[in-house]
């Protein structure tokens, strides 16, 4: 049985796409860490909001 030819590498589009995806995920992780879990895009105010269904 002939051995498999060497892997030609990832196509260009996949490299670009992968880099962009990695940057976006890292950005999200940094945002989550710096702004804190549960404050993602929260309106400014420390309004203690009731959970939905408890109003």
């Amino acid at each position: 049985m002939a051995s498999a030819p060497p892997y030609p590498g990832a196509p260009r589009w996949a490299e670009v796409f992968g880099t962009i995806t990695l940057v976006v995920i890292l950005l999200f992780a940094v945002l989550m860490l710096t702004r804190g879990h549960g404050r993602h895009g929260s309106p400014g105010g420390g309004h203690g909001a009731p959970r939905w269904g408890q109003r």
Partner: protein
Amino acid sequence: MIMPARVRKLFLTAHVTTTLGWLGAVLVFLALAVVGLTSPEAQTVRGAYLVMEPAAWFVLVPLAFASLLTGIIQSLGTPWGLFRHYWVVFKLVIAAFATIVLLTYMDTFRVMAGVAADPGADLGLVRNGSPLLHAVLALFVLLVATVLAVYKPRGLTRYGWRRQHEEHPVSPS
């Protein structure tokens, strides 16, 4: 394990329906976000932010999980596989990432609904640009996933390359 054609079509139908349903639901949130930011009616503005939380729990979250799950089943049951082709891997990453962001954003929906429900809260505080930004980003990300699914750009992963040559050792590609 390759699924029989009938089962494959059933899961494909479920995957397309839930994914496009998710996309459509995001469009509705985009409309709600615009209404919340621009409507001159106080009750309409408050209503827009109040309805976002239950709508997200009952529509966005189930559709996101259904899309992710049917996508995984669909890929594992077809020759495409889950980690053989880059376009499938990227679709998986996009769906998983969008679902995680959605789940982390649910608390923001809760806070915004709480502010909107407070009759003493100023309308300027109720209005929030965050849902608009997130809806636009979600729409973009889901459209990218749709484009990947339709065009299926070529490109085998290292794993896919190895598996292809194990299964078809005489194949010239």
